């Protein structure tokens, strides 16, 4: 076997540190995705003539093109437009916008689950649209979709390595740097995989906990 435990322990701290970068990028990206996704879903729901169609087209575009090329495009476009972002911020924005397209579909399914009567009742007691959304619809639409949203959170962990293309040194990038220095690929690459397994298992667990905390009365728990 060509597995060296001493070497593994030696690179472990470096890898653990890098996993924090992965964690950071994912959490910030997911926060952005959750907010933007909700905005896209609400715009779609309101059926504002031109705006809704544009948003739908935008979402379709984001979903059908690879994130890597979006990342490159943003990373090289923005400086031309005079905006100079740190690589990390650029990466988080692209990650967030990319997954907001997926989240908007999840929110849409959440909205569909809310009974029409709720909208009509809110209208009957003269609530404004924003109040209806805030007080009536969202509290009912969000809890059932915690799990699918969480799935995207877990998926995002596994998508963050793409950020190494724009010089963000996260788990896989670190593994590659270590491997290129020492010409030992087995341990760093396998460790990176194990770290991802641990991170996604933790994220999945967190999702389930949040889901059971926020479940509506009578909602089926998994």
């Amino acid at each position, binding site marked *: 076997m060509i597995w060296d435990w001493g070497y593994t322990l030696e690179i472990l701290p470096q890898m653990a540190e890098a996993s924090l970068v992965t964690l950071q990028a994912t959490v910030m990206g997911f926060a952005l995705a959750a907010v933007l996704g909700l905005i896209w879903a609400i715009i779609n729901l309101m059926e504002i003539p031109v705006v809704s169609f544009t948003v739908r087209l935008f979402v379709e575009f984001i979903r059908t093109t*690879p994130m890597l090329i979006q990342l490159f495009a943003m990373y090289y476009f923005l400086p031309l437009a005079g905006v100079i972002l740190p690589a990390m911020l650029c990466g988080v924005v692209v990650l967030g916008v990319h997954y907001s397209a997926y989240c908007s579909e999840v929110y849409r399914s959440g909205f569909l689950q809310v009974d029409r009567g709720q909208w009509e009742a809110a209208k009957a007691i003269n609530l404004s649209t924003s109040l209806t959304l805030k007080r009536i619809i969202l509290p009912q639409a969000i809890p059932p979709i915690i799990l699918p949203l969480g799935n995207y959170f877990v998926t995002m962990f596994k998508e963050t390595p793409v950020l190494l*293309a724009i010089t963000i040194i996260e788990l896989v990038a670190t593994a590659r740097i270590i491997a290129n220095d020492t010409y030992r690929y087995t341990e760093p690459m396998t460790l*990176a*995989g194990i770290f*991802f397994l641990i991170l996604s298992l933790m994220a999945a667990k967190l999702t389930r906990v949040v889901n059971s905390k926020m479940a509506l009365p009578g909602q089926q728990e998994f």
Partner: protein
Amino acid sequence: MSIRALVSILCVTILTGTFYFLQSPFADSGAVFLEAAVTTLKLVIVSAVFAIIIAFTAGIGRLSPWLPVRWACVGYIEIFRGTSALVQLFWLFYVLPLFGPRVEPFTAGVMAVALNIGAYAAIVVEASIRAVPKGQYEAAIALNLSSFNRMRRIVLPQAIRIMIPPFGNLAIQLFKLTALVSFIGISDLTFTAYQLNQTTYLTVQVFSIVLFMYFAIGICITIAMKFLEQRYSRGIRLGSAT
């Protein structure tokens, strides 16, 4: 979106894309982009075929009566769903040769994409087979069909109809995943875009053209899958009790 809306978006994309391309400085060097697109398409098709084979093997394997087979399939699915696709790609490309065979970049790329998507698709296959009503199995047993024929003639045709919508999403995922192979130096669309950007500094043009191409291919895949979905669900509403 409906098929008709998608087709009109596709037409607009192709028209705008072609127009944009013709007035860009790359109008004379279309072959570079075309070659890259062909590489991407090759990757998509080859890995899709393998992904489907893997998905059916692992998905049906998870329903096997033999425990070791079930464990092997669960192990494969969990490992490939739990780790990042890029880790798998690097592992196959850098680590696998240490154990034996030299792996060509294209092979490593196809293997990584197919194994990754195959794991997700295996779950879909398993769930769809489970979703076929129990009565169908019982009827097939009553008719004295062998377990192979039961699967082939009775269960799978019904399960495939259930699989197609999630497979449509996975097809797009697979298509997007192929962009990652640029990391191991396969000159697909992404790699070509990156290199052209480095050599010509025509950032906006290069990435816009490639994004147009990706979007057009992606929409084609979406339309194809929607079309399949429609074909397979034909006649289902008529008097089916399931």
